[in-house]
């Protein structure tokens, strides 16, 4: 362990003692969740510092109705569905994109919005639909791609808009007030785009500490130290311990792209329901690239597994092991809820990296020939 990490860990312990009660911090971003588990940080925290995972995994919060629409679209003749890899296994009402691909639907895993557009250029006789998922991190690339499609007249390209915005979800959680929180470890990647100042309403309206941090163990621990200092000193502020990457104002070019192409819209979050102005729609000038409109598809209703508690997990209300399905029927091999599917889902992190879950899991998995 490096001296710096040792020092940060020591300070966390001292601060926790000084605060003298249980402190609950939400890490909003799925990448933070995974990093906290993967780097073993979770095992290094003082007992009365509790981290809860927030609604920041884009796969986990995509509504089932959007997955169902993607599956229906992918089954259409002449359609190629272009999707980021981790959407493949998310269960819809009836199967997943992965299962549909196995039975003949044309689904292509892509790594950028741009490659979906290139796919459209290469397949002029087919309709290529981009399953546009993700927060402010991926939305600017979708916007740039729509502009490029418009400029170059790529008419066989469209977008199934599932983008979500982080801030409205954080504010909705605070507004509901179901989860006692002392502060937020704010997402590094999203903050690059929206800027640290974006969290001011959390501080000003709800009096919660906000610290933007990177993803290295040292950066996460430094973020937590800054949060606990605020709590110990009974002050709240937006602090940025990732200043080399995140500015106060964010990435103005990316924000301008979002404004040029999209308009905030009410959207449905998996298990959270509709959150006002938390999604993005295409502006009328670009609505011909809207896949739902082009293919006249109506979004259905979500019908989650009755036992699945992903909704509560996403809101930080319960830990995954409070769910009766966790590590029983619901495992990464047979995911029932979205938090188990995504690489960055809270349930998957618990299952993969936490000792008790692993012990349960042992009996159910078998080795495969190498």
């Amino acid at each position, binding site marked *: *362990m*490096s001296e710096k*990490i*040792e020092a940060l*860990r020591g300070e966390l312990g001292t601060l926790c003692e000084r605060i003298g009660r249980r402190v609950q911090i939400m890490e909003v971003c799925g*990448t933070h969740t*995974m990093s906290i*588990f*993967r*780097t*073993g*940080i*979770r*095992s*290094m925290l003082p007992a009365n510092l509790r981290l809860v995972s927030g609604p920041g995994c*884009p796969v986990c919060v995509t509504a089932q109705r959007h997955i169902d629409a993607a599956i229906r679209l992918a089954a259409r003749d002449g359609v190629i569905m*272009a999707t*980021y*890899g*981790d*959407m*493949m*296994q998310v269960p819809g009402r009836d199967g997943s994109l992965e299962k549909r691909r196995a039975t003949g639907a*044309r*689904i*292509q*895993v892509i*790594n*950028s919005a741009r*490659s979906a557009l290139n*796919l459209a250029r*290469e*397949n002029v006789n087919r309709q290529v639909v981009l399953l546009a*998922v*993700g*927060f402010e*991190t991926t939305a600017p690339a979708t916007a740039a791609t729509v502009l490029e499609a418009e400029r170059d007249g790529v008419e066989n390209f469209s977008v199934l808009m599932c983008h979500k915005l982080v801030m409205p979800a954080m504010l909705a959680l605070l507004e509901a007030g179901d989860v006692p929180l002392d502060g937020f470890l704010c997402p590094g*990647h999203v903050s690059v785009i929206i800027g640290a100042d974006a969290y001011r309403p959390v501080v000003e309206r709800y009096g919660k500490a906000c610290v933007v941090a990177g*993803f290295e*163990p*040292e950066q996460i*621990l430094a973020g937590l130290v800054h949060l606990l200092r605020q709590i110990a000193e009974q002050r709240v502020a937006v602090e940025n311990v990732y200043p080399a990457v995140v500015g106060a104002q964010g990435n103005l070019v990316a924000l301008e792209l979002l404004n040029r192409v999209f308009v905030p819209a009410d959207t449905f979050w998996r298990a959270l329901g509709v959150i006002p102005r938390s999604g993005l729609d295409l502006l009328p000038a670009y609505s011909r690239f809207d896949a739902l409109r082009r293919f006249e598809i109506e979004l259905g209703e979500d019908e989650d597994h009755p036992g699945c508690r992903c909704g509560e997990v996403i809101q930080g209300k319960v830990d995954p092991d409070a769910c009766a399905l966790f590590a029983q029927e619901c*495992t*990464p*091999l047979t995911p029932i809820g979205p938090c188990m599917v*995504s*690489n*960055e889902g809270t349930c998957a992190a618990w299952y*993969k*990296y*936490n*000792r008790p879950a*692993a*012990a349960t*899991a*042992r009996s159910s*998995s078998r*080795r*495969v020939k*190498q």
Partner: protein
Amino acid sequence: MTPTNPTDECVMLSHGGGGELMSRLIREHLLPPLRNERLAPLADGAVLPRLEGEIVFTTDSYVVTPLEFPGGDIGRLAVAGTVNDLAVMGAEPVAMSLGLILEEGLPLALLDRIVASIAGTAKEAGVEIVTGDTKVIERRAAGAGASASDGLFINTSGVGCLRPGVSLDLAGVRPGDAVIVNGTIADHGLAVMSLRSGIEFDTELRSDAAPLNHLLARVFETGANVRFLRDATRGGIAGVLADISEGTDLSIEVEERRIPISPTARHASEMLGLDPLTVANEGKVVCVVAESDVDTVLSVMRRDPLGKSAACIGHVTDSEPALVELITSAGGRRIVQRPYGEELPRIC
């Protein structure tokens, strides 16, 4: 009819018809690079000499997109994979078969490159390809993004002689034994994935595909007490460690800072959101050896180009429940499990 431009030549269905075209494909494109005494008669099978001791027999099939990647290609994978399966069983490879399934439209120039790579890798391993088969299948309805160069599948089987006195069995693994890996992890999987995703890094990621039989022969020659070997292919070293823990009902404690990984691979796995422990290798072996023999094994490995970054990454313990546990570089602890299904790069 002979196409006017030889670079346009490609595999056609009639190459698989068993007639003159097929015969020419074999005589002109397969036999010259692969030629050896046992293959040359093109009989229905190869007659092998009487082999001493117990015989190890293995088979594996290879499907990879793209067919060529930095550090290797499907041909090198196929030979190294089968040779390594024999070698980690404690066998000295003797002979291999080569089954090719070609899709019509496959450029012959590409086939030539891959066959040359097969021949080169077999030579490197000192193994002869003694029998083979070639089939041509109809061009598949091109999947989205698929290209003509996707159309080649390989099956290889291999026969080897078990080294006298060698018995590699999980039952021999004891608490206190050391776990060694012969070099940097995750290079193959990340090289292929970054090529597929079009992500480029400052330093090129290269597949580690290589036959390990000579390296392992040197390890055996030291007389070191080797308990168990497995090549860490799909599932990465996480998969192998989980297999060992499960098969022995013992725990393994691994130290992240001791696991060899290149800075580029570390960076790439962070970008793609992957745990490098679960990423495929094609030239890495996980060895469980008696603690007293660690230095012997490491020094012999480090003298070989395929083992120069060899390291002892952890130990077998009897702590319960039986799990693989990682002491992270940050000083924390977490468990290690084999990955589930296909590891997919993350969204953001």
